[in-house]
């Protein structure tokens, strides 16, 4: 199987546009960290091997990527991108992005999404067989 690819949810796309306008520096820092995670994932091939301070483990295999690191000239607010690395189809899903205040709702959304998504995929796989 080839390299990992990225996919976005509709919620992520909406939030991305919001952050792009309101918190561009935070979003750019998160994108930088996401790129480091994604590039490394492609080389080491096992999501468990990729560990850093900006990567947070959440329930159900979901991971949070924050804005920390780098030498930004502006003080950044907390931002967290929620992702799901699915080894079976080598896809890194970008689920949503939020801040401290939306953390609980964001994680609930991600858990629900991952469960539904995985169920749908399992059904599709059964039909393939």
């Amino acid at each position, binding site marked *: 199987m080839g390299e990992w690819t*990225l996919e976005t949810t509709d919620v992520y796309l909406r939030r991305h546009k919001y952050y792009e306008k309101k918190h561009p520096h935070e979003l*750019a820092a998160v*994108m930088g960290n996401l*790129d480091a995670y994604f590039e490394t994932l492609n*080389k*080491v091939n096992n999501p468990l*091997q990729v560990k850093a301070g900006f990567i947070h483990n959440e329930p159900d295999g979901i991971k949070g990527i924050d804005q920390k*690191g*780098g030498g930004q000239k502006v003080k950044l607010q907390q931002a967290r991108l929620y992702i799901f690395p699915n080894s079976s189809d080598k896809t890194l899903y970008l689920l949503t992005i939020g801040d401290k205040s939306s953390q609980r709702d964001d994680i609930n959304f991600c858990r629900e999404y991952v469960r539904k998504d995985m169920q749908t995929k399992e059904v599709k796989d059964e039909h393939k067989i």
Partner: protein
Amino acid sequence: MSIKYKNVLEMVKKVSEDDAFKKLAANEIKGKALSKFLFYLRCDHNLSQEQLAEKIECSQSRISKIESSYDKDLTIKDLLDYAKVLNLHLEIGYRHPSVRIVDLIKYHAFKIKAYLSQLTGLVEDDKELAMSIKKFHIEALFNIGRIISESLTKLDFKQKDKKIDLDMIHISAPLEKTKLEHLLK
């Protein structure tokens, strides 16, 4: 969810609307090629930041800082520390921006020639070693031929030529024996 992106920069360019943000994100991503590579090296050796810090005999916060630094802020000492504890040699090189991909291929072909010459020079009167090196030559001939053949099959003349972005900093993955063997299989 249907669009698949090959990398973060491609996704950012497609998804974002503001050109200033696209530039900001591109600088953030492209400005950290070396630190990203150090991050990969640590992960590839299955080490946490704490474990690597212990080996280097520094604080975990220094490792965290190195791995999130812009390339312009990294020091040779940072690179050497990683090389030393990960048992790697550090190689640094410059490349003129006008160098084309075909020039790089030619350069590596000459390198292969030089290494093969070094290899055959080891033989002297050792017949066993000569046999091993002969076997290696045959394997290399087969593998290099296969690589070129696979590349040829990828050529689709219906597609327009794509512009290839040669980054300012070129990073070669360290050649480790196990990985090289895996690649050649």
